[in-house]
C-alpha cells in the first residue's frame, strides 16, 4: 500500500481534470488558429478555458496567457517586464525565498541590461519583511518586484496587501507567484502579473498560467510569434482541463480547507513530540495543506528512503536529497535546520487514516536513521 504525501507542485489529477482532458482530446485536438471546423472547435475550447481561468483569477480574458509550464510562465513574466522597463532601471526586488525560476530570470543578462537583484530577508517563520520590501521598492532603478502568495516549501503566507500597496506607491509592477497557493486559498486581490500552476491544484502538467494587467509595460526578449507571450501556443486539452479543475477545487475549497487544516494541526502536534525536532513555517498564517519539519541529527536522504520503504512518499529540502550539494535556499534564508527535512503536502484524496499511519511510522523511521548515524543520546 502506497501513501503519497508529496503533493505540492504535482498533485494527483483531479477527476474533473481527467474528464475535461478526455473530452478535449476528442473535440480539441486541432490547431486552434486554423479556420476549418475542427480548428474552430479547438479554438472554442481554448477560449472557454481562458475565460474560466480569467474569472477564477479576477482578470479579463485577454489578460490571461497560457504557457507550457509554471517555470516558463515565471521566466516570461520576469523577462518581459525587465525588457519593457529597461529604461526605468535594471533592478528586480525579490525575497530570498522566491522560486529558483524567478531568481534565475531576474539574474539573466539581457541585451543592454546588466542584471541587478535586491534580495530581501525573511524571518524565522519564512515571512518576508514587508517594510524592507517597501524600502527596496522605493530605490531608484527598480523594474519589477516579485513576491509569492505563499511559500510552497514551508507554507507561510506572505504580506501581499502591504507589498502591493508599496509597489503601487512606487509605480513598480508586482509579479505575484501563486504557484503553491492558487486552488488552496483565495486568489490574490492585488497584482500586476500573476503566475499560477495547474499541476499544483490537480490539473494536468504541460500548462502554466500567466495573467498580465493590460496596464503593464512589457517587451519580448524572445522571437516574435503569432502567440506573443508563449510562442507556439499551448495544448488545448491541458488548458481546458486546467480551467475545469480550478473551478472544481474552488467549489469545495472551504470544506477542504477545514479538513486539511485539521490534519496539518494534528501532524504539527504529533511531530513536535519527537525529540529534537523543529516544525517550521508560520503556525497560523499558512497554506492549508503543507507542513514541514526538520529532525536534528538526521540524514534527509536516509529518512526519505526509510519512509519510502515503509510505503510513504514525502518531499525534502535537505541538500542530500537534491541534485546539488546546496540545501534548500528557503530553509537557509529562514535560519532553520536544513538537514533531516521532511515536507508533506496533503491532497484532497489524502485521508485521516493516511495521516495517522504516517504519524505512527515517522518516529520509528527517525529513530532508525539516528541510530545508523550513531547520534543517539546527543
Amino acid at each position, binding site marked *: 500500500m502506497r501513501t503519497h504525501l508529496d503533493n505540492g507542485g504535482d498533485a494527483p489529477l483531479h477527476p474533473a481534470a481527467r474528464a475535461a482532458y478526455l473530452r478535449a482530446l476528442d473535440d480539441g485536438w486541432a490547431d486552434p488558429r486554423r479556420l476549418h471546423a475542427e480548428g474552430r472547435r479547438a479554438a472554442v475550447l481554448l477560449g472557454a478555458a481562458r475565460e474560466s481561468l480569467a474569472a477564477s483569477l479576477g482578470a479579463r480574458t485577454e489578460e490571461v496567457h497560457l504557457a507550457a509550464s509554471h517555470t516558463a510562465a515565471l521566466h516570461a513574466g520576469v523577462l518581459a517586464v525587465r525588457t519593457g522597463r529597461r529604461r526605468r532601471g535594471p533592478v528586480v526586488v525579490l525575497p530570498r525565498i522566491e522560486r529558483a525560476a524567478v531568481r534565475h530570470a531576474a539574474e539573466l543578462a539581457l541585451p543592454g541590461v546588466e542584471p541587478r537583484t535586491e534580495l530581501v530577508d525573511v524571518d524565522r517563520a519564512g515571512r518576508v519583511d514587508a517594510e524592507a520590501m517597501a524600502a527596496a521598492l522605493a530605490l531608484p532603478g527598480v523594474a519589477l518586484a516579485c513576491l509569492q502568495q505563499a511559500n510552497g516549501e514551508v507554507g507561510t503566507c506572505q504580506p501581499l496587501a502591504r507589498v502591493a500597496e508599496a509597489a503601487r506607491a512606487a509605480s513598480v509592477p508586482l509579479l505575484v507567484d501563486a504557484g503553491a497557493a492558487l486552488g488552496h486559498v483565495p486568489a490574490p486581490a492585488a497584482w500586476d502579473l500573476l503566475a499560477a500552476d495547474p499541476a499544483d491544484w490537480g490539473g494536468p502538467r504541460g500548462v502554466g498560467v500567466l495573467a498580465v494587467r493590460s496596464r503593464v509595460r512589457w517587451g519580448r526578449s524572445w522571437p516574435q510569434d503569432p502567440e506573443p507571450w508563449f510562442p507556439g501556443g499551448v495544448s488545448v486539452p491541458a488548458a481546458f482541463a486546467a480551467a475545469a479543475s480550478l473551478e472544481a477545487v474552488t467549489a469545495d475549497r472551504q470544506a477542504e480547507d477545514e479538513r486539511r487544516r485539521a490534519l496539518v494541526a494534528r501532524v504539527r502536534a504529533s511531530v513536535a513530540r519527537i525529540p*529534537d525536532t*523543529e516544525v517550521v513555517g508560520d503556525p497560523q498564517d499558512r497554506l492549508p495543506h503543507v507542513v514541514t519539519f526538520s529532525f*536534528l*541529527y*538526521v*540524514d*534527509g536522504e536516509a529518512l526519505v528512503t526509510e519512509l519510502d520503504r515503509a510505503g510513504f512518499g514525502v518531499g525534502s529540502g*535537505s*541538500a*542530500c536529497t537534491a541534485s546539488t*550539494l*546546496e*540545501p534548500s535556499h528557503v*530553509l*537557509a534564508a529562514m*535560519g*532553520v*535546520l*536544513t*538537514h*533531516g527535512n521532511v515536507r508533506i503536502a496533503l491532497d484532497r484524496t489524502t485521508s485521516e487514516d493516511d495521516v495517522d499511519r504516517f504519524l505512527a511510522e515517522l518516529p520509528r523511521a527517525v529513530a532508525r536513521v539516528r541510530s545508523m*548515524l*550513531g*547520534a543517539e543520546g*546527543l
Partner: protein
Amino acid sequence: MSEVTEPETVDARGLRCPLPVVRLAAAARERPDGSLLRVLATDPAARHDVPAWARMRGHVVVGAAEVATGVWAVTVRLGPGAR
C-alpha cells in the same frame, strides 16, 4: 568560568550533512558550559545547520568564516543547553 581561550577544533571536513553537526554535538557533550568549540566543514549545509543546532541547544555562535576556499569554520560557546 572557563579557562579555555583557544577553541578546540572538530575537523568535519569532507563529511556530508548532518555528520558535521553530529560530530560537533558529540564533542560538546564531553565539555563544560562556557567552553569554545570550533568545527571545520566543507559541506555547505553545515554553515546553516551549526547555528540552527546551537540555537536549539542553547549554545551561542561567536564566529563564522570561510578560512580556506570551501572550508567554513564556525565557533560556538557552549551554553546551559549542553548535555
